């Protein structure tokens, strides 16, 4: 099916939500109660429709994408490229400003575009339960969608930065307005933390612009484009190391990596279910994506210098996240969402470890892990959402015996939980194994310590499973969730929830058995990336044939 599309598909997939926002804002609110209900219904289905079209476009991109072309630093091998001059001005004092509207994707971004489309589509369904300011909610939701999609398509640093900031604002409001009891604290924490990272990024971006003369990310990867005597000119200078660290911290906050992770549990605990889904499913990937797209290839020398430190921090995230998930210390206040939030810290640590190995296995595993963590954690948060909607609590100590009450739900939950502990036959297993195989070659000791999470992960996941699904049902949940049978006709999950969960479960199992549809996308780019980085980085030389 590979070929070309003479149609600005990336612009469409990115800016399609604008269309949705306009329609949603034009929907009249309705005068009486029935009218208001109808208006809400229309808004919800418009959002579902728009994200569905986006998903179709993403699938088209997937089908027409040619995996043989590597991308990374060669304009010619990027696909669906759109490149026009956007802002070209000569300003006093500042000099020439040359910003391009430059979109294009390669093997690193295609899986992310696909993931974003999938997650944004499925997260619409849990959003149907939101009743407060529906119009505003879905407008924000679609704006967030736009920002995320833009980040994964942009190849101009300035454009990237705009999308990066664009996604921040709706997220702030989505947590701050539709969130839980401590929503203001969580929202502001998220906002300011990310903004700190953005400031670092902005400074480095300006410095890079002065050194290279354009915002083109591809140009920045070529050392010969740096002007002589410019601040980032030359290799291995202190200022480059500092700049790399600034960028790295900016992205590490987003991942989030130890010790910059504490905004995540708060944000997750307070965010409404669909926003947690997007946060874990897509937003966290932007940090790691930024490292691969920007920080590592632009400053390969600095990456080489800090490589072991980064691998170490990845290991710490893995083990620390797992232990924190296991040890929420206030009995009675142990929160299901917090557990999953910490497990995200642990699972995203794998991504960092895999990237720092600079082996094809490790890096492919890392990107695949980004995709898998997106689907698996999205599913986990939706599962929490299902019981939270019914019981209005997420306390791990408040439940028990749900397996008996909700068998279908328990079956889907088993898929997500077992995928999260890396059970073979589920996608998470393959990415974790690839990461370990890669990183063992470069960092055997760190990898072995990280391996502890194989045991710890099983411990906290099975512990949560037992608390919620096994044992006896507590007194207060003995009866049906909804005695009037208006909102919940049965005790088990409803059709809407199934619509959101089932596709994810199918993806997780399918990719667990046959991962090639996603792995093939990135193979070319990953190998090219490693070739690019090779002169600067440490790659363990034990493996034969490398």
């Amino acid at each position, binding site marked *: 099916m590979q070929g070309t599309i003479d149609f600005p598909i990336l612009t469409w997939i990115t800016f399609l939500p604008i269309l949705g926002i306009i329609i949603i804002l034009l929907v009249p609110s309705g005068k009486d109660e029935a009218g208001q209900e109808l208006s809400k219904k229309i808004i919800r289905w418009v959002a579902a429709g728009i994200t569905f079209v986006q998903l179709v476009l993403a699938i088209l991109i997937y089908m027409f994408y040619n995996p043989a072309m590597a991308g990374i630093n060669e304009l010619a091998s990027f696909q669906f490229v759109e490149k026009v001059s956007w802002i070209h001005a000569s300003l006093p004092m500042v000099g020439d400003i040359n910003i391009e509207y430059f979109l294009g994707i390669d093997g690193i971004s295609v899986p992310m575009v696909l993931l974003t489309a999938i997650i944004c589509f499925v997260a619409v369904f849990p959003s149907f339960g939101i009743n407060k300011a529906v119009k505003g909610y879905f407008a924000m939701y679609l704006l967030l969608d736009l920002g995320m999609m833009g980040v994964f398509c942009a190849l101009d640093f300035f454009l990237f930065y705009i999308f990066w900031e664009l996604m921040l604002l709706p997220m702030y409001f989505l947590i701050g307005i539709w969130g839980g009891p401590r929503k203001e604290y969580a929202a502001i924490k998220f906002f300011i933390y990310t903004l700190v990272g953005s400031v670092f990024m902005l400074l480095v971006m300006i410095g890079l612009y002065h050194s290279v003369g354009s915002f083109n990310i591809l140009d920045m990867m070529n050392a010969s484009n740096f002007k002589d005597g410019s601040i980032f000119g030359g290799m291995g200078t202190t200022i480059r190391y500092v700049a790399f660290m600034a960028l790295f911290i900016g992205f590490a906050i987003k991942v989030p990596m130890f010790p910059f992770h504490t905004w995540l549990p708060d944000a997750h605990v307070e965010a409404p279910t669909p926003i947690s889904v997007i946060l874990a499913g897509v937003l966290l990937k932007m940090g790691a994506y930024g490292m691969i797209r920007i920080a590592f290839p632009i400053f390969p020398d600095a990456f080489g210098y800090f490589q072991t430190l980064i691998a170490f921090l990845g290991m710490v995230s893995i083990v620390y996240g797992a232990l924190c998930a296991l040890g929420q210390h206030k009995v009675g206040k142990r929160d299901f969402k917090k557990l999953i939030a910490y497990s995200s810290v642990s699972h995203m640590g794998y991504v960092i470890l895999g990237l720092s190995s600079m082996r094809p296995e490790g890096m492919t595993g890392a990107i695949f892990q980004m995709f898998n963590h997106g689907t698996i954690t999205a599913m986990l948060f939706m599962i929490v959402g299902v019981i939270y909607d019914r019981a209005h609590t997420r306390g791990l100590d408040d439940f028990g*015996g749900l397996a008996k009450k909700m068998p279908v739900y328990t079956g889907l939950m088993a898929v997500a939980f077992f995928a999260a502990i890396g059970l*073979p036959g589920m996608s998470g297993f393959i990415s974790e194994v690839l990461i370990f195989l890669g990183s063992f070659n470069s960092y055997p000791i760190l990898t072995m310590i990280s391996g502890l999470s194989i045991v710890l992960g099983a411990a906290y996941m099975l512990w949560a499973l037992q608390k919620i699904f*096994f044992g006896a049902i507590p007194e207060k949940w003995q009866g049906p969730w909804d005695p009037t049978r208006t909102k919940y006709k049965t005790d088990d999950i409803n059709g809407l929830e199934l619509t959101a969960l089932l596709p994810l479960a199918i993806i997780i199992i399918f990719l667990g058995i046959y991962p090639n549809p996603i792995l093939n996308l990135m193979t*070319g780019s990953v190998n090219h990336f490693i070739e690019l980085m090779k002169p600067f980085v440490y790659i363990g030389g034990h493996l*034969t044939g490398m």
Partner: protein
Amino acid sequence: MTHDAVLLLSIIILLTPLLSFLINVFFGGKLGKISGIIGTSILGIDFVMAIVVAFTKLVTYPDIHTIQTRFEWISLGPIKVVIGYGIDNIAAMMLIVVTLISFLVHLFSTEYMSDDRRYPKFYAYLGLFTFSMLGIVIANNFLLMYMFWELVGISSYLLIGFWYEKNSASNAGKKAFITNRIGDLGFFTGIMILYMTYGTFMFDEVFAGISSGVMPFNSPTFLTLAGIGIFLGAMGKSAQWPLHVWLPDAMEGPTPVSALIHAATMVAAGVYLVAKVFAMFTADALTFIAAIGTITAFVSATIAITQVDFKKVLAYSTVSQLGFMIMSLGVGGYTNGFFHLVTHAWFKAALFLAAGSVIHAMHHAMHHMHDHHTDPQDINNMGGLRKTMPWTYRTFLFVTLALSGVPLTSGFLSKDGLLAGTLAYANLTGGWHWIIPVMGFAAAGMTAFYMFRLTIVAFHGEPKTKIASHTHENKSVILIPLIVLSVLSLWFFYSPTPIDGSKGWVHRLVVQPASAVPAAYQWSFLLPEHAGEASPAMHAEGEGHEAAATEELHHEAQPAAHATTHAYLNKFQEESHHFHYIAMFLSVLIAGGAIGLAFMIYQYKVISADKLEARLKFLHTFSLNKWYFDELYQATVIAGTVALSKMLSWFDTYIVDGLVNLSAYITRGFSFITGLFDNHVIDGAVNLIANTTGFVGARLRKVQTGHIQTYLVFVLVGLLVLLYYFSINF
């Protein structure tokens, strides 16, 4: 049948139980009781196909070659992940073991589980388990083996915790899975070392890599460590000390599950793995394996003596027997170890199914008498079952004889060979290695003792409770599997003579593969015999000899690589033959003595059990409390992890996040100060200007009188001033 047909059929054998799983998971609710029939028939067909495959392999292609295939699973550009599957002789035999026991357990459960609310789900899980286990059997590479290994772990978790309403059951499932994962961490580390060094997961390619002399990190120590790592995985699954603690707890699962998983198949997977990758173990790794096996066999036998729960006795007995198999493999008795795996699978499955039959009858009797407090598994509540359940008793007695190693049974053949192997090993290596046969024989004696204690207390004498006297023999669906398995424990299936297992087809077909490890790092007595020279044991070698050994390596490399696919005889086998009659004599003597002792204590009460208990108070308590391993782990590993995780959680909330919040407070404090500055200094300055202006304005206001005369005076004065000014300048 051609090779391709064998491979095709084995993949069908693998996938049919998965079909059973899928049918029962998705349509179980509608199928109800039919799900049991579907599951059982699918396994029946599977068993027939397994027989076809196994006989084709063992009869048509009996050589040591593996009928195998490989294919690319994942492609990462220049790096390809290749996996595959294949049938060798031990896989062929395992196929029969797994499918037959699984089929019999399916059949048994149609009656045993008939009252259960989640009957279809039970069959679904059995299907999933059988699928995973068959995957382990036919895997010919580390990756696929590891994948099915984990799947076996999860299906075991689901089946142990099948009655999840009971907290003890879900705890036991969790414990089993996590303990196994600890072993798997080692297994996976081993795989990573091998993959890093040889760039492949395939068994044969790894062995070829090892025999070419390439070492992980250029050091044989790491080859030993890789071997120990992989063995750690086997220790988890096969419940070897110190990871044995999960298996007795796993008895919380339904009894047919215990028979299938925790007696015959899953727990044998560890032994099977060690046999499968036997060629890669160095002498040091083998010593480690032998030591672990011996300790396991001995420790768990001592625990089994005092347990009062019917299934717990059998569970510790299983652990002990698995220890025997591992010990045998460790000392180099490859064939003996695998032989014992097969014979043990039949009689231990029979023992557990008989236990299930007893418990089922006890349950029914309790139900009948409206008693819900008596423990139906406590042997002190039984007694006299010989009369009420004659067929269960007969089969149980027979397989008990097999387990005790009494002549005319299969257990005698395999255990005898195994013990002879330990004697041969000790004689060849000397020194402290003599402990291995000593502990082995002691454990064998204890086996006979505790099995007859169990038989006598539960089946002989008078009923100890009313319930026991009200038990009835079970339906034939329950008895048929028992009888089939008992018959399979007769000697003539394995050897023409009832006293020597090595004359049988097992020893002809299950031949030890040549070690891939270069001669310098391997026991000399395990290497192929050549030119009749018998070099002394490894540890006797001096510095000078080391160099010679390394030189020999180069000569060795070619034949060794070749030898991995060929059977051969070695010094160990020769020595085992010498010890055969001694071992036979000793084991019959010890088993007979132990059985006699059990009769004296429990049947004829010549020796008072209570007095003996009081006399050996300390030992008895120690054994009854399972050497306090659970308590030890609780106090160290578990408490340590929990404490660490709580501490880190606290650290995260108050220190890491505290710093974040602190920086927010500092920023706010700073902004408060700047706010003050802003209010009082900057804004003060602004206000000062404003105030000054106001003051000046107020003063100046006085000028604004509103009288036209005053203004005219100002105008006049102003004009005069201007005129004066300009007149001066011009």
